[in-house]
């Protein structure tokens, strides 16, 4: 993989996904299209707990992402301190993301989302 800068932002090859999680940027190479597409939506904040189907998608995406080891991690802001194969901090970041999303799931369910799990007339 080659990363170069354009107007201060990193530009990466199209098969590499950039995930900004908390104060870090992770460069991921995901072989499976479906996971890649879901991961993109998750990192862009488009995959949110708003239905049982989406909640399953979120959980499944996190499960799949845990099997991936990023190529590179950088600290944000400033894109500093490149680290190769940062598996431990990737798992830690995913754990944090998982906990945040779980909190949102509980909130969604408690604020009326429970109805989505029940059959309706």
């Amino acid at each position, binding site marked *: 993989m080659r990363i170069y800068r354009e107007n201060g932002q990193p530009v990466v090859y199209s098969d590499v996904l950039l995930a900004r999680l908390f104060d870090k940027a992770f460069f991921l190479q995901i072989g499976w299209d479906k996971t890649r597409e879901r991961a993109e939506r998750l990192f862009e904040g488009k995959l949110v707990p708003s239905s049982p189907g989406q909640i*399953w998608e979120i959980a499944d995406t996190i499960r799949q992402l845990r099997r991936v080891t990023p190529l590179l991690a950088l600290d944000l802001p400033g894109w500093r301190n490149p680290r190769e194969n940062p598996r431990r901090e990737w798992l830690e970041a995913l754990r944090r993301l*998982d906990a945040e999303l779980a909190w949102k*799931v509980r909130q969604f369910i408690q604020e009326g989302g429970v109805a989505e799990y029940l059959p309706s007339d």
Partner: protein
Amino acid sequence: MGAFEYQRIASKLLRETSRNILVIAPTGAGKTRVGMEALALAGRGCYVAPTRALCYEKFKELRAKFPRKAVVLGNKDYSLGERDFAHSDLRVLTPFRLNHLLSSVRNFSRLSPVVVVDEIHSLDPDVEIILTKLMLLHPDVRIVGLSATIHEDDEPKLANWLNALVVKGEERPVPLVERVVRFDPDLDEAGREITNVAVLEGGREVDSWVVDGEVVIGRCDHLWEVCSRIWESGDTSPILIWTPYRLRANKIARAIAEILRNRGKAPDPALQAVADSLPSGEHTPTLKSALPYGVGVHHGGLTQRERELVYELARAGRLAVIVTCLTLAQGVNLPARHVVFDTVHEYEDGSSHKRLIDISLFRQIEGRAGRPQFDNIGYCWIPAFTEVDLAEIEEILLKHKASPLVSRIYNEFFLASQVPGLVLLGFDNPERLAGFIRATLWGQALQDIQPLVDQMARIVSYLLECRAAEIRDERLVLTWKGRVMARLGLHPAEYEAIERLASSGCLDYEKWVRSLARVRIDNDPSSVFQEGDVDSIVEYGLAVHSAPLSTYKARELADYVQRMLDLSEALLAIAGYDQAYRARWRMDVSAKFTYGKLVLMERLAPALGRDQIKRLVRNLGQALTKPPEDLSHDELVEIARLLYAHRRSFRLDKQSHAVADALGISPEQLVELVQEAQKKASLPMEVSYDDAA
């Protein structure tokens, strides 16, 4: 009678009042005994159970408990007419059967002063119609509803609707402990992959351990972790693993057996012998490889013999692990102290997305753990692979007792098939029909009745248009056609499709099957069948369960077409079609649907009776899909066993010559196969040769 307080209260109410009773008690708390006592006190009655399997189990129980009573069974396998109903004391019925009998049996309340409805929460549309008919037309019939999983808000709703006294048993006689197993991948200090496993009970961690490497769901590692943890604690009670899909069930059984083998477990000689005796079928390789290690699998894709075998072994406590889908998940009593979920998510209908399983289904499945006959405690193990999973499990599955009751009668296809029967019972104008529907549980919740009256008017216009009814003195009167529809429970479109095919003298198997399937697909928007499902049932008929990658929907559609063929047969007889046509139709269309276009059965069928054909189709598994020349020796022995091993004697007569011919073997070879099958079945049998043949 019973040992539990709620049973004593129910018993008192049954003896001292004539009120309807709704019994709500947890799984395994003995609700059936209340139903049995209601029937015993009345001396006559009906027991309604939602599935064929449960009907059969209850039929056996009733026969054992009331040896002097005439007990009869009416479901998809066993027909039960008005005369059988009138000449019996106790009837075990599916809702569909009872619904139609209610329109035709005279003196119903005298013949059946009690109707027990098991699993009333499932609220089958037929159950809702039956209960409404009973309350409006036979208010003296006592209704006893039994359920374990009713949503709290629905208890008063259902009790009010039934005007019933509620008897509740709050305590499960055997405590059930729910444990969530949290799997969290991590790295150890040296950077090696590990998985932290934590067991949570009520949100509190009660156990934890570390697994080297990754826990891969596809490899069933999570299930192995739970099972081995249970065994390490010295608990060797049977474990029931639930998974939503058959192929996955097979995979789990094979994976666990293989791990046991790799860890040095020796095969059990007795179980090995059982496995060796199994003929080959689609799922038999799984059983052959797993059974010797005490691992069984039980689902609807197995042959009847395999299912019974696994059930008996499980019941006798011979299996350490039983992997099942839905077949053992509802209403059965097995000595399983532990129920382990492979997953709590399944695919939504027609979608590539999954979602959490239904709450009531979850409660039914976990309720299999710790049955009073076998255990004093039960454990339910639920895997969570992320915090998101855990949030859903805790907030939905563990917090709610049941899904709310949902009426399913609001379906125009279903209602239109009910209306002729209702007209026959005196609901003979749109207002009266709407009044009937208004009296259903669904109708009671309606704020505005006008849309319902409009809907009834639409159905009535349809019946008038297709000449199933006419108006006389402002009353709806059924024509001959309408009376037949009422008697058979047919939708006008179903009637017309059958009439169109029969009146053209059609004997084309494929045309009949496709036309009948299309009636459902075209007229019931709630059905979500695919074209591929129609192709599958044309190809395989009722044997669609043996088809590679057969879908649940295809099996459902096959059941529907089978029901339509049964009704077609009745309609052809009522309508007076000539005997020669009916005989050919039975052979070329109806009987053929049992096996579709399967070459083996096409060749064998002319030599066999209907029961023999059905026995082969139910039991032969994947061998059904092979031409005779590709059958293995074991498969030929199994055919011989299914056809002849239950008999006391075997005669090489004209019929067996024809069977040998169809199988491409000599009559002498058939005799050898029968003898081998007999030896396996360990039954004495006399074999003789019929010279005349």
